[in-house]
């Protein structure tokens, strides 16, 4: 990290103190909601309904966590979130992989194999990021029905790939735009083909932007509720649908501590991705997407 940090802005001591103070206060602001969730997930329910939501627990319990994972009611069966976790994994991994690969190839073509109107095509793809998902629900359902993919994980993967292409193409296009085209031309003269150039020359240096794209897609797809609820079958539903069933019960008693524990459980994979891959994240963004 320090290797990239070569610039040298000089700042005075008081300025530095102010900077540290500001950064710490902001960190507190960002951590606050998470703190509320964690603190309330280890309290018994009576302490929550009767007391202060910011207070530390008087009685510490991990019951809510166990309940949310394996015994809470998310349908007629008290299964907890556990079975739905794997549904989500089965959906997210292929969807992220496919949309990333497509985005990489699209970005490669749009920058290194330019043709007439390619910018307009890219503009069309980029604009597609802005389509509100509410309007695609019904026609999408019809098409999935025609394809015979309704109520299956494949259908869900298709949907996420389709609506992920815009952003993954954006990321890779901007990244490859900064990649020296001379290298590609040289390889071409040496007789390398379309795919060979991609594998041998661009792929090896695509690590950072792949991280960015994977993080983005993983987060979006993991957190999706609307498509998951509409296009998956009951027992094949992703985790967000199960979490929603846990949290949104309409006329029943609300077990807030279990809700919070479930919410954190449902968020763990994305949090993990951010923490593990996060250090490559800025590097990935730096290497491409914001340089244009």
């Amino acid at each position: 990290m320090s290797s990239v940090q070569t610039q040298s802005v000089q700042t005075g001591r008081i300025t530095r103190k102010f900077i540290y103070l500001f950064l710490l206060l902001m960190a507190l602001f960002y951590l606050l909601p998470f703190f509320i969730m964690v603190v309330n997930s280890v309290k018994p329910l009576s302490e929550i309904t009767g007391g202060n939501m910011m207070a530390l627990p008087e009685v510490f319990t991990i019951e809510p966590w166990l309940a949310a994972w394996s015994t809470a009611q998310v349908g007629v069966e008290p299964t907890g979130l556990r079975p739905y976790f794997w549904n989500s994994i089965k959906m997210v991994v292929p969807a992220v992989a496919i949309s990333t690969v497509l985005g990489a190839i699209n970005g490669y073509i749009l920058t290194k194999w330019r043709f007439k109107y390619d910018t307009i095509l890219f503009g069309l793809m980029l604009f597609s990021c802005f389509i509100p998902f509410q309007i695609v629900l019904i026609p999408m359902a019809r098409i999935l029905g025609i394809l015979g993919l309704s109520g299956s994980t494949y259908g869900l993967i298709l949907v996420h790939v389709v609506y992920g292409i815009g952003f993954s193409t954006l990321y890779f296009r901007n990244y490859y735009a900064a990649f020296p085209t001379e290298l590609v031309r040289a390889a071409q003269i040496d007789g390398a083909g379309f795919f060979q150039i991609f594998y041998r020359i661009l792929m090896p240096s695509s690590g950072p932007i792949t991280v960015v794209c994977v993080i983005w897609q993983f987060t979006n797809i993991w957190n999706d509720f609307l498509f998951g609820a509409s296009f998956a079958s009951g027992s094949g539903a992703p985790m967000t649908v199960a979490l929603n069933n846990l949290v949104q019960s309409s006329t029943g008693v609300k077990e807030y501590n279990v809700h919070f524990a479930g919410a954190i459980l449902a968020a763990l994979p994305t949090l993990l991705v951010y923490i593990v891959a996060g250090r490559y994240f800025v590097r990935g963004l730096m290497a491409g997407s914001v340089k244009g």
Partner: protein
Amino acid sequence: MYHVSKSDFKTRLQTWLPKLVLSPSLAMVLIFVYGFILFTVYLSFTDSRILPSYGWVGWENYNKLWRLSHWEISLKNLGIYASLYIAICTAIGLTLAIFLDQKIRGEGILRPIYLYPMALSFIVTGTAWKWFLDPGIGLEHTMHLWGWESFEFGWIKDRNLAIYTLVLAAVWQSSGFVMAMFLAGLRGIDSEIMKAAQIDGASNWNLYRRIVIPLLRPAFLSAFVILAHLAIKSYDLVIALTGGGPGRATELPATFMYSYTFTRNQMGIGASSAVIMLMTIAAIMVPYLYAELREKK
């Protein structure tokens, strides 16, 4: 009859291959995005209610739409919400990035803390935010317990201020992401330029204002695109935090669209609101994208 040599075929394949490989993605986008948009435009002129139907009613849905005070409120709210959200996120993101770029100790810890909210959906954090903002159990209550009796923070209960709580929570979620984009931009700037400017005796303030920030222009583009798309799609946030209330004070076009299409069984009006939304987005984004993309050629 003509003869195609092997190498000729190969060359031709090579020129066609990129377009061939691109075409599935393009086809998907054309069908699943632009096809559906056309379908929605068509629906907006029909009497569709619970399911799509094909009785042509002309402009009736649009006329009804503009007579609904509900729709006006949600458009006005989007104006306030989107502009504040984009502006504040950009400001905080840029400030954090510049500060973090001053060889800060503990950057490795601070950065993921700023970034993590982007990983969570509001289905997850909505309740925590709702509690925090609720004066009865949240921040105001806690401050009172800690002895600051006069402290007041009841925005979420106030018709005129509730929209700003949406901005607050939304800024919380995405400003860290914007920070990462700017930080990446800063780290990508050639340090020679900075040194040269300092040797010329530019103050820190001028250094950033005159040299660094203009160099971050691509980062501003990416941030704008991402923030604008998040602002327009904000739906979970409203549902989790205010449910559109108090009253209808925090309705946004996305919640309006959903509610008319699905809960009110007035799919025609829902579609017409979607068309207006898309046209507005296009009116803002197309010139912007055009200018940015053309320049790069």
